[in-house]
């Protein structure tokens, strides 16, 4: 029955404003041509003056220190230093990509479309949340490297002594607190659950016992920080009246992400030296792992 078809508010392409249009040839094609030409020339020039790296032949017996992933994965490698490997390497990026893909389904308002920072207060939100993401990520990295505790001690002679040593970084919570033995092995399954056998490196994969301090430090605290701090920022901005629409919330979230992602990539690339220690870029040396030449 034709009347049963209900018109849903599905967004359709906008009507064209023909009097506002220009011809693609030449107005657009030439812009594209010039930018392609500029990039070709720049890349030719770059390739002429700078060679792609080629080190010694691959050798499984010689491990360079530090060993690093390609630069665009160093953000994940940096996260890996602070938490459980599965979370840093797989779960967080996967969940984030899903959230990223879901942006348009969350923010369905068409306000501010097609213009840079088209909504009210967009520039302010972008700048402030980017600064928060930038500073926050650096502070967390400093704290977890133990540098903050070291600086407080070296420059201000402030030291918590052994009493507060557990606050030095996230690992210290696991190592410096007097956890009872039972908490390190809480049986939560009456049987030994085998997920995947024969994976080669570590034999049968089994889940039966929970190491509570380990779980707290490797999973609970990192996830609380990564989910909690952005939520806290968005909540605070909402209470301040800066965030009103869903677009505003996404602006804050995305800008914070870009800044934080940038810092993680930068730290992973330029600030991680031997043993993944936090060093200045000019102190960064790679040992090729050849005995006698380290």
């Amino acid at each position, binding site marked *: 029955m034709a009347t049963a078809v209900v018109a849903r508010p599905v967004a359709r392409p906008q009507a064209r404003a023909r009097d506002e249009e220009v*011809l693609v040839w030449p107005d657009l094609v030439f812009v594209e041509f010039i930018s392609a030409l500029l990039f070709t020339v720049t890349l030719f020039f770059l390739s002429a003056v700078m060679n792609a790296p080629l080190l010694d032949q*691959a050798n499984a017996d010689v491990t360079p220190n530090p060993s690093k992933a390609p630069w665009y994965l160093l953000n994940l490698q940096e996260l890996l230093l602070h938490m459980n490997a599965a979370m840093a*390497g797989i779960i967080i990026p996967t969940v984030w990509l899903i959230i990223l893909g879901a942006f*348009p389904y969350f923010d369905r308002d068409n306000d501010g479309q097609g213009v840079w920072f088209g909504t009210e207060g967009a520039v302010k939100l972008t700048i402030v949340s980017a600064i928060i993401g930038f500073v926050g990520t650096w502070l967390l990295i400093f704290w977890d490297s133990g540098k903050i505790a070291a600086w407080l001690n070296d420059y201000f002679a402030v030291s918590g002594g052994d009493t507060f040593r557990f606050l030095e970084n996230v690992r210290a919570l696991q190592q410096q607190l007097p956890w009872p033995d039972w908490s390190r092995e809480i049986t939560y399954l009456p049987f030994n659950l085998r997920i995947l056998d024969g*994976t*080669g490196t570590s034999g049968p994969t089994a889940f039966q016992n929970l190491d509570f301090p380990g779980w707290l430090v490797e999973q609970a605290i990192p996830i609380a920080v990564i989910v909690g701090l952005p939520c806290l920022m968005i909540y605070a901005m909402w209470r301040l009246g800066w965030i009103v629409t869903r677009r505003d919330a996404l602006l804050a979230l995305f800008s914070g992400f870009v800044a934080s992602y940038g810092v993680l990539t930068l730290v992973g690339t330029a600030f991680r030296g031997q043993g993944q220690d936090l060093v200045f870029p000019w102190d960064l040396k790679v040992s090729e792992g050849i005995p006698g030449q380290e």
Partner: protein
Amino acid sequence: MAVETPAKPSLADKIYDKMFHNYVWKSIFRTGYPNTPRNQMLVVATNVFLHLHPTRIHRTHVKITHTYCLGGLSFFMFLGLTVTGILLMFYYVPSVERAYLDMQNITTTVQFGQLMRNMHRWMAHAMVILVFLHMMRVFYTGAYKAPREFNWVVGVILLVLTFLLSFTGYLLPWDQLAFWAITVGTNIAGSAPVLGPKTRFWLLGGFEVGPDSLIRFYTLHVIGLPLLAAIFMAVHFWRIRRDGGLARPL
């Protein structure tokens, strides 16, 4: 009675006429020289490469600061990488015995080999950066909003494919940088819950980076992932047109 005779065509006119108004030329390019609005629209609509574009476009969208050409440049990098990649494939054999030697040959004995390799490398980095910046542009101009929701999702998939394309290419030089970067990278993949070890094994064709990993990465890098990326790019570009071109204010 004075009769006005038209001026005789100059030599340049004659050459022009011979070149562009002959049977063969007209069989290739059906439209005339694009110096009238009609021909300018026809040249875009009837050319297989240019017909990705509409014939006319809103005036705000040709401003360079609106898009900075980031999406187009990402695609341009993909094309450049294909060209330089094919040239490198002539000289490169993905076996543990030959890969590194071939790299040395490319950089020392092959004419323009070093240049081709450099171009391929820097273009790959540029593509990762450009794709990311393109995503930022789309986000900050609110261009992911209706009716372009799905195209944003396709874009996120293309971002992942770009990372994977670059990652699989990283192993191919078979030097220390490649070997250990892939070892670290695949260890990250291997840490996934439940499926991690299997994924790592499947990627590497073994428990560690070796001959089987090289051929797998090579195959993915030169045909598997580019094909997949091309399919998603086709959808991406098609949807731009179907969704009404670039986003503009309501």
